């Protein structure tokens, strides 16, 4: 789920960079000292996740974990993701530095959406509600990213519906897998360390 360098037009790149910078600033502001290790570890997980290849469906995709990051970090997903993406661009040549802003936004924004929509549900004592909320956070992370890639590519003439359809289809299996992984992680954390789920507003 990276957009390569040289695909997007300058206005899209600038818009992505501006939105991401704002998100990173808010995230850093909200980052309490005690939470830094958690942000760092989730950043590492995100960094490594894109190397985990899931050979299901028509086109093999990799894990993204942005839904999980969103649920656990809220706004802090922005700084967490930007660090991981910058290192992926530097060390793996995934994406690139000119598209860093856009790539950050298209993964961190769905994370934020997942957080805003689903994290209140995690407080529920009902097992089912928590699992479903976590599952759909994982789905939202990927689906949101796919839709945003489509939006970014509209300006290159590939056609929004076409791209979004291709990417959504290609990522359908990974959406389900991410949903399950997110569900599993959240359930585990709720049982073992419920205080982690109380994200700073």
């Amino acid at each position, binding site marked *: 789920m990276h957009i390569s360098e040289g695909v997007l037009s300058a206005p899209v790149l600038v818009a992505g960079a501006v939105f991401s910078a704002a998100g990173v600033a808010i995230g850093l502001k909200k980052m309490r000292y*005690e939470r830094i290790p958690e942000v760092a570890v989730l950043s*590492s997980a995100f960094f490594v996740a894109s190397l985990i*290849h899931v050979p299901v469906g028509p086109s093999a995709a*990799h894990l993204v974990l942005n839904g999980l990051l969103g649920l656990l970090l809220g706004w802090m997903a922005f700084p967490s993701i930007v660090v991981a993406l910058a*290192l*992926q661009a*530097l060390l793996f040549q995934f994406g690139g530095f000119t598209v860093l802003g856009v790539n950050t936004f298209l993964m961190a924004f769905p994370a934020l959406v997942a957080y805003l929509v689903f994290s209140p549900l995690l407080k529920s004592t009902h097992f089912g509600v928590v699992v479903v909320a976590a599952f759909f956070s994982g789905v939202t992370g990927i689906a949101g990213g796919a839709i945003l890639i489509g939006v970014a590519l509209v300006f290159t003439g590939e056609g929004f519906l076409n791209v979004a359809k291709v990417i959504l289809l290609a990522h359908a299996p990974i959406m389900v897998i991410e949903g399950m992984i997110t569900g599993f992680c959240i359930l585990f954390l709720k049982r073992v*360390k419920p205080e982690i789920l109380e994200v700073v507003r």
Partner: protein
Amino acid sequence: MKNGSLFSFVSPGLWNERRVRRSVAAMAAAAALSLLCGLFVREVEAHKVNIFAYAQEGKVFAEGYFVDGSKAKNSAIEVFDQRTGEKLLSGKTDDDGRFSFQIPRPSPLKIVLIAGAGHRNEYVLSEEEVKAALSSLHHFVEQGEKKPVGAPEKQRETPGVRSAASSCERSEELEAIIGRVVDSKLQPVLTILVDLQERSGKPRVTEVLGGLGYIVGIFGVIAYFKGTHRQKDRTTRP
């Protein structure tokens, strides 16, 4: 408890807070887990697309492939003049991700591979490479007229340099033979190079570990600055 010492270094009193200690312990466990994942992942994949091209005998051969080694089939290829930015030709890769074309003009060529959905990469053939390929073609054609058995040759020598003198003819013959031999010897090396180029696109364990190290460092710096603010707050408000 490596993390423990790290954070006590940042702010000695803080480590004693139970909440922090517990969260760091849990996070260390998670870090170890993600590290293990990283180490044992053999199949590495992301949709990064690569393109590699070389020029030989008046033609350019390009090949597109994804990071996992699968070929970029039926992907659009566009060729530009690197200097003027003019689009020279376009086409599609075949089922092996390959595309070849006659060199349209002796100038640096930018070959762009567009694999769809935001995946794109380019490869630039320098002017020297393009010209060498073109001149080897001329050479080959002339040699071929004289000796129809001529195998593919790669010589940079311009035709005008040659004279009719017999000693020169001989040295030229020698050159042609050497050229042929070198070419046949170099063929496997070229294959290895292409292969290496393909593999170099894949992230290795060292890069993964290096990246994780960077993350620890970057958030260490953030923690350091947040920590100094914290201590200031504490000293100003006793």
